């Protein structure tokens, strides 16, 4: 009689206890889901750029950019076009535009920030004109510097 009661108690404990296996199963699936989606998405983002059909102007657009820092009236023109020319010299990329000439990309970024602080240039279009031997990485870096300075309309055309 006692043995029978003990067996019944054991059976009751077994059936009433929560089953961990399905829970662990579901939790693992959720874990795998987040791991997989994270690896597929990747730490990647995008910089929007226009690829216009017009050729880079030979006019003194950089003079306009230089003037933009001093003359607010010219800088806020809706069609203001600021050209940044990139060339490769001495193993580094040199930029001319936004009020500076033949400087490294760090100084160009500083010039862009200064320009952004002094005048309203949000509507201006920055045209990045790299020469063929400029590393693509530097083109993206200039684009990034423009975005950081508030110049969101960037176009890229070849020389």
């Amino acid at each position, binding site marked *: 009689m006692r043995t029978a009661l003990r067996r019944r108690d054991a059976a009751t404990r077994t059936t009433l206890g929560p089953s961990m296996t399905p829970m662990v199963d579901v939790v693992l699936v959720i874990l795998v889901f987040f791991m997989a989606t994270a690896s597929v998405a990747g730490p990647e983002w995008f910089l929007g750029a226009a690829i216009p059909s017009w050729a880079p102007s030979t006019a003194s657009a950089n003079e306009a950019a230089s003037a933009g820092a001093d003359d607010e009236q010219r800088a806020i023109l809706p069609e203001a076009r600021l050209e940044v020319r990139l060339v490769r010299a001495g193993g580094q990329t040199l930029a001319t535009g936004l009020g500076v000439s033949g400087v490294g990309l760090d100084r160009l970024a500083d010039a862009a920030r200064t320009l952004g602080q002094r005048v309203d240039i949000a509507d201006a279009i920055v045209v990045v004109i790299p020469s063929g031997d400029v590393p693509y990485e530097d083109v*993206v870096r200039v*684009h990034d510097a423009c975005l950081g300075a508030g110049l969101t309309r960037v176009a890229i055309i070849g020389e």
Partner: protein
Amino acid sequence: MRRRLVQPAGETPRVNVTPMIDVVMVLIIFFLIVGRLAAEKRAPVDLPSADFGADGALATPMVVNVLAPDGRVDIGGRAFGVGEVTLLAEDRVADEPDLVVQLRADRSLAFDAVRPVLDALRAGGVESIQLAAREGGRP
């Protein structure tokens, strides 16, 4: 002794939903991952880094991978020449005027390798692109 298969009186039969949820979730995950990989077919590109990017478009983009300076690009896991890129772009733009093109070019390439691709896209009617970059952490 024969086991009782008859439901005891007063007890309602219960359906165990846990395995069903489990299987359904596995299927959802499978189709999500396979669908996304099939749509994008991201090639392993060493992207440049940027600090001020934005998330990509929600619509299905045309992903153009520029891996080498030989004038060939990878789109959807297949290699194409620059001339074919123009035709592909024309076809896509005809169907989707607001087509988003994501350009994934290797950071070590010179602009000479990327420019023909930009020209080909422009010739195909694409007016704006998204340059793919790694988030921050410029080396």
